């Protein structure tokens, strides 16, 4: 059995590694507070998530109820953002659309991260043939402009929320895998990994307990920025009729159907587009702030 | 009061204060530093990393990383002219021209996508009216001066293809391009092999001897200083703690810090029992200790050291130390 004094040295290196991760997260949050734009992003994101979760409760009107006698009414009280081409309340549809968009975004990001983290860490850590095969596959996917491949897939499988999530995840995971692979390769060379190997830990154990937890900070940045991209992508697909199907409210399909009436009732097109822009902007500002907070060179 | 023969003085730094704003607080990197360099003199500025030496060099060149670092107070007289009061345009005509600087890491200090020749020629043409052919000829000549014989080949190489020693010679060639009267060398040999170090130092020595160029050598290595310098200033925690002619400093080190620095030079010429180190950590330049700044690490510390901050006190002719041991009021403590 190991001499206990050696044990403590290796253990303290392991604690050092865990501390790195925790400290990084803490520093991230503190540095974040200093940026005005990142704070705005953070507040907005929290707000819109709350709105999305509470949508059934706070939605002033039912987003599906039509009122054909009052089609395309401009904004006025109580319909603060007016009515769409079927007489539905735009504001309520926006709120419910938030739920859809955020949900789709979240699912895409989580699924793509799941695949990306597994492929990236395994590829980066084991190297060799495994790495080559995985990265070749990723390269093939990356050879397509992402949305073009997603459009192609959706054209073949047909529009539905499930398919949207799947196709977007399929085109997104290679980007994540590459980033995480780089991170893994950097981590692999660090002392605490050598220490763990010397202690007899199996490769699988090292991956799970040491490598993956230390990819959390860049993963958080990827996830935040990824939400913005996913929301834009879903809006685009829905706009083309390849995403969320009516009557489910999606910001993208709202723009598509409102397009024919843009002259008479511009609010039907402008409102959802503004929502997309500001929401994506907020996620990007937050993600940027998190990325800067992570960058060791920019920390004081 | 010390009197300077003004005719002979090339550079006079008076009560220089350079502070840096950081997220952790205000760093007093250079805190009331005064020194002078005479014409043709090689002056050493010695101290540990982080004691403010590089900030002194950047202050003289007015190349401080703005907006966080600023010269708060003091004057810098170059040939009698206060260069801190010059406009940026006027200062630019001095940089690389009358005063040149060589930095520590020659790989990162050279532009990676320009050939070595292009960078030397750029230095030449920035202050001199020559046609391109002449400039390139001069560049090859400069390379020969710094010890690179096949200059006409090297001139077309990119920095990444040259060895560390060659790159540093190129940096010196760039610095000499316009025949400066003052050459500042900031840790010029730290990243180089020991054998190359000697060659570079000899080069600097020869430059002074042939052209009369004054040199400010900034380093943490007292060994280099002994070899090369006429006069030495020892810096600690943003202040000069000892100054004097080189011989005096080495024969009669008067500040405890200088003594410790001398003892910790690795010297293979005789066997010692253990390698001496200086206890404690590099001082915090944001929260400086009360009294003498060296008191937390000083092996001779007394109570008075923690309360009174010493001035530079005369030890012998032109030799001063910032230590209460030499102060007539306090030196009883050490009897």
């Amino acid at each position, binding site marked *: 059995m190991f001499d206990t004094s050696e044990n403590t040295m290796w253990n303290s290196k392991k604690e050092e590694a865990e501390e790195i991760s925790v400290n990084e997260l803490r520093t991230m949050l503190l540095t974040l507070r200093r940026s005005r*734009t990142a704070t705005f992003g953070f507040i907005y994101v929290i707000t819109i998530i709350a709105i999305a979760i509470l949508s059934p409760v706070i939605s002033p009107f039912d987003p599906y109820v039509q009122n054909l006698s009052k089609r395309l009414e401009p904004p006025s009280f109580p319909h603060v953002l007016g009515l769409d081409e079927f007489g539905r309340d735009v504001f309520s549809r926006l709120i419910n659309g938030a739920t859809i968009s955020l949900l789709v975004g979240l699912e895409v990001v989580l699924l793509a991260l799941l695949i990306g983290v597994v492929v990236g860490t395994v590829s980066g850590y084991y190297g060799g043939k495994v790495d080559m095969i995985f990265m*070749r596959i990723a*390269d*093939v*996917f990356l*050879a*397509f*402009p*992402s*949305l*073009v*491949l997603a*459009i*192609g897939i959706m*054209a*073949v*499988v047909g529009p539905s929320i499930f398919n949207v999530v799947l196709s977007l995840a399929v085109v997104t995971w290679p980007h994540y895998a590459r980033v995480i692979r780089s991170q893994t390769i950097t981590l692999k060379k660090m002392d605490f990994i050598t220490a763990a190997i010397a202690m007899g830990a199996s490769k699988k154990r090292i991956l799970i307990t040491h490598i993956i937890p230390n990819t959390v900070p860049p993963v958080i940045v990827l996830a935040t920025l990824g939400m913005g991209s996913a929301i*834009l992508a879903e809006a*685009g697909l829905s*706009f*083309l*009729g*390849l995403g969320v199907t009516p009557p489910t409210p999606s910001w993208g399909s709202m*723009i598509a159907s409102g*397009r024919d009436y*843009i*002259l008479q009732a511009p609010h039907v*097109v402008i409102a*959802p*587009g503004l929502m*997309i*822009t*500001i929401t*994506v*902007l907020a996620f*990007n*500002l937050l993600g940027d702030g998190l990325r800067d907070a992570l960058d060791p*060179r920019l920390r004081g | 009061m010390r009197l300077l023969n003004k005719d002979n003085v090339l550079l006079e730094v008076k009560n220089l204060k350079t502070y840096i704003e950081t997220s952790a607080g205000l760093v007093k990197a250079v805190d009331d530093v005064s020194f002078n360099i005479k014409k043709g003199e090689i002056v050493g500025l010695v101290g540990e990393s982080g004691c403010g030496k590089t900030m002194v060099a950047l202050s003289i060149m007015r*190349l401080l990383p703005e907006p966080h670092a600023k010269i708060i107070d003091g004057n810098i007289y170059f040939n009698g002219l206060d260069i801190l009061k010059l406009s940026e345009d006027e200062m*630019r005509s001095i*940089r*690389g*021209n009358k005063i040149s*600087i060589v*930095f520590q*890491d020659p790989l*990162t*200090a*050279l*532009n*990676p*996508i*320009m050939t070595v020749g292009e960078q030397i020629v*750029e*230095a030449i043409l*920035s*202050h001199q009216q020559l046609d391109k052919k002449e400039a390139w000829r001069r560049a090859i000549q400069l390379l020969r001066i710094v010890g690179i014989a096949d200059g006409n080949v090297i001139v077309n190489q*990119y920095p*990444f293809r040259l060895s560390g020693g060659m790159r540093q010679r190129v940096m010196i060639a*760039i610095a000499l391009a316009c025949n400066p009267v003052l050459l500042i060398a900031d840790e010029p040999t730290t990243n180089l092999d020991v054998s190359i170090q000697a060659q570079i130092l000899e080069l600097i020595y020869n430059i002074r001897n042939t052209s009369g160029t004054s040199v400010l050598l900034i380093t943490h290595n007292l060994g280099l200083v002994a070899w090369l310098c006429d006069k030495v200033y020892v810096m600690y925690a943003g202040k000069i703690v000892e100054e004097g002619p080189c011989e005096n400093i080495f024969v009669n080190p008067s500040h405890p810090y200088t003594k410790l620095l001398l003892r910790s030079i690795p010297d293979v010429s005789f066997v010692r029992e253990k390698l001496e180190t200086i206890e404690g950590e590099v001082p915090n330049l944001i929260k400086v200790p009360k009294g003498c700044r060296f008191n937390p690490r000083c092996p001779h510390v007394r109570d008075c050291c923690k309360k009174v901050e010493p001035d530079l006190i005369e030890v012998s002719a032109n030799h001063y130390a910032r230590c209460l041991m030499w102060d007539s009021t306090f030196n009883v403590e050490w009897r």
Partner: protein
Amino acid sequence: MLAYIIKRLALAVPVFLGVSIIVFVLMVSTPGDPVLVRIGLDPNVSPEKVESARRELGLDQPIHIQYIKFLEKLLQGDLGYNIRTGRPVVLDIMETLPNTMTLAVTSLLLAITIGIPAGIISAKKQYSKVDDFVSVGSLLAASMPNFWLALVLILVFSYWLKLLPISGYGTPLHLILPTIALGGALAGTITRFTRSNLLEIIRQDFIRTAKAKGLKDRVVIFKHALKNAYIPIITVIGLQFGTLLAGAFFVEVVFAYPGIGRLAVQAILQKNYPVIQGVILVVSISFVLINLLIDIIYAYIDPRVRYE
């Protein structure tokens, strides 16, 4: 240098193969009987005709043989036939691809013309109000859905101000709004990238050396900093070209611009699968080729790569 080019070309071959495999997989996954899909959805077609068509199209063969046949046809430039018109898909693509490329190139030029100077100004004046404004503005541009921007532009400039045509193709005027809609987001991205790159480069030692030589600020920025910044910027432009091509799908639809994107979207509505696949194939191969070109340019301008 030549060795580098050959190596890159060799590495591109498996990628081309992979792309063709994915498009083939998409092709065989289309819903419905593939024969009917290929020869048209006429329900009165006789069963014998269907069978003979099946044999003709090689659809009775095992999958890997079908793939080989597909690859063969591909290399001969046969991308199948447009279900609606019966014309070879290649012809449809050859008519529309140049229009899309025109739009893509003008958008790229617009994005570079705005993006690089904006990035430089923003980096030079870091911490100032100008920097804040440009930073947020560029991110805003990159967060806007291009199809929405297109609609807003039409609303303002075509309907309200009556300055520019709503849709179509032909004169340079027809290109203005689509270029702004497509290039806007890219302008934002290029601004941000130029800015962050320059900021990183400015902090490096060789910039300090350049200043120590007594060079003017303008020279330091343009000759030393920018020249180093161009290298990663060019790489990013290559990658972003894919986003441009994808964006063209949306912008062309809104402006009824006769490009490859509009062709594809119409084909989707018509379930004209050969056209869809042809477009995806051509767009992806173009993307790969452009990135190959960028890699070669990159090797040429970065001496560190040239001498490897």
